[in-house]
């Protein structure tokens, strides 16, 4: 037992400076980084296209929209909440934009703006309901997930008579909005989608906020212990509602990228994606119970997703194997996280 006050005066010399390995082990994203390196090496050796610039562009693009969502979801999970409506929200925002601009003839920019307000509103409502009722966010957002799913189909069918909205290409402002959200840029002779840039940008901003700002400190705190945080004056409700709104914002960003790239959207799109976001965040080191995790880790988790999904295609395997891979990956990530958590929460009396 160590009683701090009775320790010898030469306090700081009691432990040697932690080695590089020790310092790395406690980082939440280290597991995902190792996993990413393994997956990368494996497919680089097994397949030929994987390392070609075209191949790289493909799996980076696959990872990008998933990554944007995974990063936002990881912040929310660190804050101790889930959002099951996040997947469907990517379709809802795209539908709002598409219906306003193709059916009502609005300028795309205005439609995007209204769609953003809609997303932030849904996010705020999710957060407010969770905080106000004290119910688990799992249940509350399951409700909004189903509600949005119904709204997506119902309204799309009412407005267009079908279950998809298309024709974005002929709308006002499509060119400029498309440039921002869905253009490609050339790098080393290969074209890369701009969504990759959004993904990297979003990760940098989210990670900086999380680790370097006051608000980031509050995110960890409300996820780690909402009651303790409230007791020292952290605005728990405001913090959590803001996190739900951040997730909704990310869904708007992804929805906008999708609608402007594919120029049409299916009303049943996005269903089931919410679990992929959570899986990527967990692979990236987020605890399901909140209070611990990393935004960079979630981005790496999404990268593993993208590399494995495309790698399996390049290797000419049946894509059924992807699910197996996912399951194994998730289980090992949770086991590693659990060990880390026990290390951090170990109580010495």
């Amino acid at each position, binding site marked *: *037992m*160590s*009683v*701090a*006050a009775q*320790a010898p005066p030469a*306090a*700081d010399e*009691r*432990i040697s400076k932690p080695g590089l390995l020790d310092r790395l082990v406690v980082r939440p994203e280290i597991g995902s980084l190792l996993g990413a390196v393994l997956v990368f090496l494996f497919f680089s050796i097994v397949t030929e296209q994987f390392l070609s610039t075209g191949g790289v562009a493909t799996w980076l693009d696959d990872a990008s929209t998933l990554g944007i969502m995974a990063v936002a979801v990881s912040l929310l999970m660190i804050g101790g909440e889930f959002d099951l409506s996040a997947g469907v929200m990517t379709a809802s925002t795209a539908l709002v934009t598409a219906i306003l601009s193709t059916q009502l003839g609005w300028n795309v920019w205005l439609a995007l703006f209204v769609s953003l307000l809609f997303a932030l509103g849904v996010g705020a409502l999710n957060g407010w309901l969770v905080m106000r009722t004290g119910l688990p966010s799992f249940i509350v957002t399951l409700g909004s997930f189903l509600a949005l799913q119904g709204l997506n189909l119902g309204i799309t069918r009412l407005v267009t008579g079908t279950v998809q909205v298309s024709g974005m290409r002929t709308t006002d402002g499509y060119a400029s909005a498309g440039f921002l959200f869905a253009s490609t840029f050339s790098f080393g002779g290969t074209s890369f989608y701009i969504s990759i840039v959004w993904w990297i940008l979003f990760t940098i901003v989210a990670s*900086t906020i999380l680790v*370097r*700002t*006051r608000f*980031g*400190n*509050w995110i*960890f*705190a409300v996820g*780690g*212990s909402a*009651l*303790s*945080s*409230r*007791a*020292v*004056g*952290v605005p728990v409700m405001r913090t959590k509602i803001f996190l739900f709104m951040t997730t909704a914002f990310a869904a708007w960003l992804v929805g906008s990228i999708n609608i402007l790239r594919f120029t049409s959207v299916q009303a049943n799109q996005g269903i089931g994606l919410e679990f992929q976001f959570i899986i990527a965040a967990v692979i990236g080191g987020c*605890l399901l119970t909140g*209070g*611990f995790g990393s935004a960079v880790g979630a981005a790496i988790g999404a990268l593993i997703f993208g590399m494995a999904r495309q790698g399996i295609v390049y290797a000419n395997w049946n894509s059924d194997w992807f699910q197996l891979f996912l399951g194994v990956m998730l289980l090992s990530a949770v086991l590693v996280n659990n060990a880390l*958590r026990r*290390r*951090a*929460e*170990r*109580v*010495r*009396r």
Partner: protein
Amino acid sequence: MTSLIETTEIGKTYGSVIALRDVSTVVNAGEVTCVLGDNGAGKSTLIKILAGVHQHDRGSLKVEGEEISFTSPREALDHGIATVYQDLAVVPLMSVWRNFFLGSEPTKGFGPFKVLDRKQGREVTKKALSEMGIDLRDVEQPVGTLSGGERQCVAIARAVHFGAKVLILDEPTAALGVKQAGVVLKYVARARDRGLGVVLITHNPHHAFPVGDRFLLLKRGRSLGSYDKADITIEELTRQMAGGAELDALSHELRAAEKEDVS
């Protein structure tokens, strides 16, 4: 000198349940007011009123002579009343220094580009803790790796550092071993010597008596009396805590029962 906190016949009801009634006591700077009572005596209700978690619905609460009713813990904090809860003192997964500054983080930079001043955070935490006589190996380690006593001490040092005038401690020694409890009580005394008014909630008179200046005894939501240290002995305190007259009656009954068994 006006008292830091003065309650006069304060009371609180939850629906039809009277949780607290007619409790009067004072908390002075540089003194420890101990609140003693068994489970359900109203100790928690009293401190929740003082900490701004609940509002009292009768009697008066004066802070530095000014009548007040807190609407949030933040408001109580702004009046210099800091509360350290038994299990809620810290966030276990966060590092010591992040816990220390939680809610009052040091920042640098301007406007929307304000970032945490992590270097200052670490240094100030280390300094503030060592001033309270708490010597930690590493302020970057998660608080969860500290012992129960050390965690309480971090929370106490935090309150002292951020200029609390009144420190409310909810059962700080409850889950601790004898040695750890002693360490925590030492920091309580140190906080008192630095001029803070301390409210110490406990159900252990042996922890309360050595550091306390005033003892408020609660039972079933009512006050059994508020005594200065000079007016009460530890034996009397223990007896009152244990139920006093009721205990006498109980031992009488037990004796009677024994006699019956023998006959």
